[in-house]
């Protein structure tokens, strides 16, 4: 509301109209995907495809979930969940304990470790694809959950976020805890961890989306269809050559692939926004 002096009459309605048009454009691809997931293959193959949903929603989703094209989508959803949760929980655990070490202890090479973690910001997986793939292949981690998760669990961003938060925790709390007889482990578990709840939750939302949406990495690491994650599996559903793709099933899969992260964003919008803003500080 700050951008404007109070607006009356026609102007405000035009603004609403503009917003609605903008939202309609942005939502249109999703709507088309939804319509496609409720009609039959021939209806799409003879353009123009219908603009209103058809009666085949249950058929298409059942077909996708139980059979899919190369492997059942249900299995891909499971793989995606394992990968996303593994990355999310892994990153949070690893980052919160390293931030704890860096903030609450003094020890030789502390700053060296700090900079080492910092430098990983400059090494996104896209940049070091081939050699990272070779390392993972060398460990025999291809087509495994470990291979999908482990190389992605280091997180400079999450470490900095926790460090930032720890620095705002008053020193007296750690002193009170020491007088109460708490050592470093108890202080972490009983005091610091519960106090970090909101930060952990916000980070969880952001990292879950990050993990779920991984594409290039699973594309390289999983060669067996039964290890495919849903986001990279969609592309594998397109036939090679000139065969017509099974669009209703592909679109059903596409919607299933976006459902978990979108639901997380919509239902945890507050935490999501907090996570975005905090992780950019």
């Amino acid at each position, binding site marked *: 509301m700050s951008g404007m002096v109070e607006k009356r009459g026609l102007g405000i309605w035009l603004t609403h109209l503009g917003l609605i048009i903008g939202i309609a454009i942005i939502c249109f691809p999703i709507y088309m995907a939804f319509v496609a997931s409720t009609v039959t293959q021939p209806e799409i193959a003879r353009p123009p495809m219908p603009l209103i949903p058809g009666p085949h929603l249950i058929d298409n989703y059942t077909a996708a979930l139980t059979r899919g094209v190369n492997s059942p989508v249900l299995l891909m959803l499971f793989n995606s969940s394992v990968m996303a949760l593994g990355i999310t929980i892994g990153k949070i655990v690893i980052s919160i304990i390293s931030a704890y070490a860096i903030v609450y202890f003094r020890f030789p090479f502390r700053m060296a470790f700090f900079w080492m973690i910092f430098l990983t910001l400059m090494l996104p997986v896209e940049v070091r694809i081939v050699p990272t793939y070779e390392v993972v292949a060398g460990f025999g981690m291809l087509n495994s959950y470990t291979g999908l998760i482990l190389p992605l669990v280091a997180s400079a961003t999450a470490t900095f976020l926790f460090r930032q938060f720890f620095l705002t925790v*008053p020193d*007296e*709390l750690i*002193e*009170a*805890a*020491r*007088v*109460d*007889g*708490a050592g470093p482990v*108890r202080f972490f578990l*009983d*005091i610091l961890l*519960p*106090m970090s*709840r909101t930060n952990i939750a916000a980070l969880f939302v952001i990292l879950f989306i990050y993990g779920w949406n991984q594409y290039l990495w699973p594309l390289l690491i999983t060669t067996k269809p039964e290890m495919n994650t849903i986001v990279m599996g969609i592309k594998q559903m397109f036939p090679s050559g000139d065969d017509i793709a099974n669009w209703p099933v592909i679109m059903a899969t596409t919607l299933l692939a976006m459902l978990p992260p979108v639901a997380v964003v919509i239902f945890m919008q507050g935490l999501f926004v907090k996570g975005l803003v905090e992780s950019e500080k």
Partner: protein
Amino acid sequence: MAKIGFSNVRKSYGPTEVIHGVDAEIADGELIVIVGPSGCGKSTLLRMVAGLETITAGEIRIGDRVVNDLEPRERDIAMVFQNYALYPHMSVFDNMAYGLKIAGVPKAEIAERVAQAAKMLELEPYLDRKPRQLSGGQRQRVAMGRAIVRKPSVFLFDEPLSNLDAKLRVQMRVEIKTLQRRLGVTSLYVTHDQVEAMTMADRIIVMNGGNAEQVGTPLAVYHKPATVFVGGFIGSPPMNFLQAARLQASGLLRKVAEVGGAAGALNTVGVRPEHLAFCSEGEAVLSGKLMIAEALGAETLAHVELDDGERMIVRIEGGREVPAAGARVHLSCTSEHLHYFGADGKRLPD
């Protein structure tokens, strides 16, 4: 319950020494207030007792044990912090119980001890609340409760009342004192507020620039300040000071042979505002102009500027008549009320 002993306690941060050797013995059950301006090292001294700061040199004893190298939890102490340091995510009950839980005290006993403390501090209705749902005074009590339930042999208070408003501060200061009496636990209490020091302490340690300038009962400190600093810091309004040479002609300075800058020689004379009185020109020891008179009801504080520009404060009873502002006034006092200090600021023998 325990005695506390300080022997030549020193603290340095790198090359900077901030506490220059403090010696003091505190008896069992005593409430000692450490008072001084900010930066005088009083909090550091307290935190060294708590084990939150290391001791660079010297020795601190609690009971019969030297505690220099003991962890805070091994020292049998409890501490009340300036900002209370309550655990924000725990209920009042859990805040008080936390130390006991860590110590492995059985659940039933924890509940009993917390209940007892809560009753004593009138916190019973709030046990399920979180700290943020409490008022400042209530948080203060929770911090007290957390200390009490541990049944420690020493209480440490680090400016516990400075975040409260004036009215609550007066009330809490009485409560803390009463509670300490009742429990009989040896206590160290740090404050910058000399009124708190005077009203609460069995004995006061006045600190300045890393030194303990004086250790004594409130009245001893008030009536026989060991240094110019103590005279100026304890008492409100503070003691008036004059160059001794000014009074040489008055005939008031008895027993002191020599006035001057040499060691052991009399340099500064102090007199409390209540020991100055208005008088006629003939009896005058000092003369000047009345700048302003602050009528406080029970007493009036008259600010007088002497002829050489020096300012003095005179405290007189509220009912007395006070000369008009701007009037020329004359002040007198008696020799037994004068405090003598050497050039090094130390009190000279009477």
